[in-house]
């Protein structure tokens, strides 16, 4: 090893130059005061957070103490996110069950079930549900004109000259 040390003597002398690199004058006079100030600021911040959000502090300390707990929490969050994405991408909803649910839950439907059977709604109408088409659509599209009693009149297209 001594031979190696001798081989590197020039390099060691060059590296000695690093010992002469010095920070600006007076730098170390304020250093400890800055550290102290940052410790106090950190304490104050921690106290302020713990006053306002004690549950957050407890959660964070639980994470620090048990990394497995942090992993489980992160896993649960990911699972929740995946479920959210899957449900968001599903087709809006199966219309019939929803319509039935809507009718069942409607007070009108509960009050007069017999009248519903007499209405000219032979087939369940497909009601696309969206934000502009609310679920609680009491009238079927087939019964719209019937309820207004519109008269049907034939039109004569014969021209007077013929």
């Amino acid at each position, binding site marked *: 090893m001594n031979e190696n040390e*001798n081989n590197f003597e*020039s390099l*060691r002398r*060059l590296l*000695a130059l*690093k010992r002469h690199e010095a*920070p*600006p004058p007076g730098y170390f006079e304020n*250093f400890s005061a800055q550290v102290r100030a940052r410790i106090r600021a950190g304490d104050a911040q921690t106290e302020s957070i713990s006053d306002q959000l004690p549950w957050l502090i407890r959660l964070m300390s639980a994470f620090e103490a048990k990394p497995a707990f942090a992993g489980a929490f992160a896993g649960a969050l990911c699972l929740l996110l995946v479920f959210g994405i899957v449900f968001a991408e599903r087709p809006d909803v199966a219309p019939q069950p929803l319509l039935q649910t809507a009718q069942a839950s409607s007070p009108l439907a509960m009050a007069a079930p017999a009248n519903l059977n007499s209405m000219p709604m032979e087939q369940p109408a497909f009601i696309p549900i969206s934000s502009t088409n609310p679920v609680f659509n009491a009238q079927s599209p087939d019964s719209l004109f019937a309820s207004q009693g519109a008269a049907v009149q034939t039109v004569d297209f014969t021209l007077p000259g013929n």
Partner: protein
Amino acid sequence: MAEPVSSSEPEPSAPVDEDELVRGARRGDLAAYDELVKRYQQRIYATIYHMTSNHEDANDLAQEAFIKAFQALKSFKGGSSFYTWLYRIAVNKTINFLKQRKNRTHMSLNDIDFNAEHDPDMMALISEQTPRRAAGLTELQEKLNAALLKLSEHHRLVVVLHDVQGLSHEEIAKVMECNVGTVRSRLFYARQQMQGFLADYLKPT
């Protein structure tokens, strides 16, 4: 005049005093901790500075290391000296920082102090024995720091702690939490690399 940031062995202060300061700091006594900071600030700053070759980064990291040490004092069991424990915190923080900043290094070098011009080694370096006679101390400083930055973090750390800071192999092994053989082999490899990088500025042996 600027303070030198060189260091060698731990300061020969009474260990009882240091233990007392550590106990006080653990109880939250900031004055006691302030004393510990003053005792080690130059060595911690110097180590980080030589690792990063950047004064601003070294300033931030050194302060953060002392803050983290204060916050972690309760976990300090006293298995090693406070000095070694503090060094370990500073070194780990610096290595993590350097890994995050990989390939985005920016040198911000400190000035060379007045004593360098009177150092016999420095005089020899810029004398006719150096192949590049025109190389002044500033140029040497830049080349030296650039060469250090080319080393891996662990190899650089060994060179800085041993050849610049003057720590023994055993002390370095404690700080880096590895065995002495690893320290020696890393030092040998790092020096070889450095010799290659700085061949133009080194006297042939």
